[in-house]
């Protein structure tokens, strides 16, 4: 411990104290990137979050590859397994992890403190989106390699088509995650985020195509963001039929989610 107090002069290092300067924020991009880096590091250093982001989707892939469920006729099992896995990974990071992390940030007063810093609320959200995308890249790499090992042979057109689907899906589920984090108590956020994740993956049209559900249940699942995402993923990666309806549903959930966050997200517990 140093007994020498740090220089608290408003003059920058190397400047004369006689010529103080006004404290300035770092450039906006640097602030956002810095926040994205912190969020990514925190997420990736947390064992539970890593399990949700990587281990669970990997288990979904292996399970769907081994078991004769969730397949499309005439399509290799690994293709439908990878599509379902990528959708699971997207939901786990954009929705579950973000809901839990943001919920705890709100409870711990992090959101209040952030709002008083040069980063501000908009910078916090921008950094969070970048961190989510960075985690997605890691997920795609790790899970993609696992898929390749299991025999997945992707087509470049499908991968390119995946990009906009992934981005819209990230916005839709990220907004829903923030909404859960911003409206519920932290303990409830933990329960709801995990429960909803399991339900969406199991019966929300992610692991199994909605065409395999009873008619009414399938119709309902088609209207969920998870059902739309699952169908679009299978269209991109498993040769499934492209459904414009699914694209519209996912876009509507993204737009409604963002509007709801703007309207109802609470930055404090008060």
């Amino acid at each position: 411990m140093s007994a020498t107090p740090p220089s608290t002069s408003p003059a920058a290092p190397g400047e004369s104290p006689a010529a103080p300067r006004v404290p300035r924020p770092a450039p906006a991009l640097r602030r956002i990137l810095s926040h994205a880096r912190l969020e990514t590091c925190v997420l990736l250093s947390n064992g539970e979050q890593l399990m949700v982001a990587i281990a669970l989707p990997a288990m979904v892939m292996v399970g769907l590859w081994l078991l004769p469920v969730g397949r499309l006729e005439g399509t290799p099992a690994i293709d439908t397994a990878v599509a379902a896995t990528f959708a699971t990974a997207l939901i786990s990071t954009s929705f579950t992890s973000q809901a839990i992390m943001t919920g705890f940030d709100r409870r711990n007063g992090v959101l209040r403190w952030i709002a008083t810093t040069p980063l501000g609320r908009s910078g916090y959200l921008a950094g969070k989106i970048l961190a989510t995308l960075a985690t997605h890249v890691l997920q795609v790499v790790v899970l993609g390699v696992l898929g390749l090992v299991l025999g997945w042979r992707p087509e470049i057109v499908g991968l390119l088509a995946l990009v906009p689907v992934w981005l819209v899906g990230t916005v839709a589920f990220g907004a829903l995650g923030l909404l859960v984090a911003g409206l519920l108590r932290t303990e409830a956020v933990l329960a709801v985020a995990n429960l909803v994740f399991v339900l969406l993956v199991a019966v929300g049209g992610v692991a199994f195509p909605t065409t395999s559900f009873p008619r009414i249940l399938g119709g309902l699942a088609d209207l969920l963001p998870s059902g739309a995402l699952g169908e679009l993923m299978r269209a991109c990666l498993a040769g499934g039929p492209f459904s414009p309806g699914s694209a519209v549903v996912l876009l509507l959930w993204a737009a409604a989610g963002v509007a709801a966050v703007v309207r109802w997200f609470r930055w404090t517990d008060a």
Partner: protein
Amino acid sequence: MDDHSPALVATDLAHSYGAVRALDGLSLTAERGEVTALLGPNGAGKTTAVSCATGLLRPDAGSVRVLGTDPWRASPEHRARVGVMIQDGGLASGATAMQLLRYGASLHAAPLDVDEVAAHLGIDEFARTLVRRLSGGQRQRLALALAIIGRPDLVFLDEPTAGMDPSIRRRVRELIRGLARTGTAVVLTTHLMDDVVGLADAVRVISRGRVLASGSVQEVVREHRGPGGGVTLRATASGVAPDAVPALEQALHEAAARHGARLEVSSAAAADLEAVLLDLMDRDASGDEAAGSTTHHDDAPSAGAAR
């Protein structure tokens, strides 16, 4: 806005949480280069007032100007000039202490030297510990470091020394005095009167959302002590030979009695104990084997007289 105008000006602030009126026409100022302490019981409105001044809360009525700006509409440029240490920490629990401090510094163009701040506040001792595993005092230090890391013109500190050991508390006080010396306006909320007496240039006593008293510590005490209320005098007699203590005590009692004052004499005042504790810790830190042979501070009596 010129550099001599107050850093904080709140005028007739009012704010309610439902039926509860937290601020009821609160007006106060905080000057540059001064430590201003906000005092009052829990629920007096201190935190609500600070929330309004930091742009976290929009008052129902009245106005607040911070460095000439409405904090509710503050830009990143304005927020870079204001440091905030909030009551419930505001620290991301999954990050390590140093990770968070470097992150806080990265939000500013010309922050303080991170390693220097960490060393001074002892944060380097738990640099790689996750925030969720830090003690209350360690979190306070980190929150304080984050509040000052951007060299703010105005800093809000909520209970900055709560939960800290005497050695760190002394350093924090030095740091706060240093901030004020270099022109920073420091707004302090605390329940520790030692902090107020030792640090504050000005105090604002708040109750039920209003300022009841305002001025220097001495002015507030002089103007607001009750009719007939006594003034407490404290004096320390050092270097008294042990065999001279009874005679000195007797003389002090007689002197107090002549003035109608009540006298309490103790041979180990809190200040002595704190001095001994700090001395022992310093010796221990420097590996001084002579730490075992403590000086007999408790032989030196101190006396307090009150009338």
